[in-house]
């Protein structure tokens, strides 16, 4: 079965990622693998470097895609640390989807709910 791995936390980006992942699961008929209160989801807690652990889980699950939320940090932190999607893209062969933070404020994700869209 197709699996989508979603990295979540309490940030707006994490919520946006969860929303987009849920829509993708519905559209692609996939299984969601992370912290989501949903019957179609499984959850797992991992300790370590975020990019490396997500890549490892995605590889172990044979994931179709990894979904993450975008973060906005200061210029210096962005340069030093906020490179998770870019790091992931380098260490895994699984595509990485970055959900914009703006989608967190709109639970129904109207941008994606267009005719022929995800929902």
């Amino acid at each position, binding site marked *: 079965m197709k699996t989508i791995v979603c990295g979540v936390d309490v940030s707006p980006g994490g919520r946006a990622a969860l929303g987009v992942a849920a829509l993708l699961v519905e559209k692609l008929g996939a299984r969601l693998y992370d912290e989501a209160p949903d019957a179609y989801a499984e959850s797992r807690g991992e300790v370590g470097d975020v990019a490396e652990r997500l890549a490892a889980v995605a590889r172990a699950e044979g994931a179709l895609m990894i979904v993450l939320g975008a973060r*906005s940090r200061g210029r210096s932190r962005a340069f030093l640390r906020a490179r998770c999607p870019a790091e992931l*893209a*380098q260490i*895994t062969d699984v595509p990485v989807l970055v959900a914009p933070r703006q989608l967190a404020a709109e639970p129904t994700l109207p941008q994606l709910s267009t005719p*022929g869209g995800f929902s």
Partner: protein
Amino acid sequence: MSELAIHRTPADNDDRQLAEQNVPPIVAAVDGSPASRAAIGEAVRLAAELDAPIVFVFVRRGPAGFFGNPIYQRRLTKEMTRARRVLERALAVADNSHVPAEGEILEGSPRRRIPEFAGDRRARLVVVGSRRLKLGRSVSNGVARTAERPVVVAKGLQRVATADRAA
């Protein structure tokens, strides 16, 4: 800023109707690099699964004007020829998978123009490739941080061994 529509290759009449119904497309950035080829493959796969048309975009920065007319024109012609060639290859891949697609050549900074174009076209997804840059700013990272649409960073083919070690 300029935009130039290069081509449109709906696979058949149904696809043509889909593309013309103003269905939000998947926008895929291409530049002819190996990372760009990964982006084309991922965009075509997602478009086939989501029943969405694709718009391939090639963003060129444009030759510097201070070289003067003969050199400027020669470099501009060379850039446009390369852009058309890259887009033709991407369109051929989409056509082989029976996915409706079109190509656009944009001018400016890729980090700025790709999110702008995706917003203008109400794109469902933006697909970009990722390549490791030792110096300089990553286009894929910049697009992922600034775009208001979900961005798919297509798989890089390098350094997969790191993930193997982590596993």
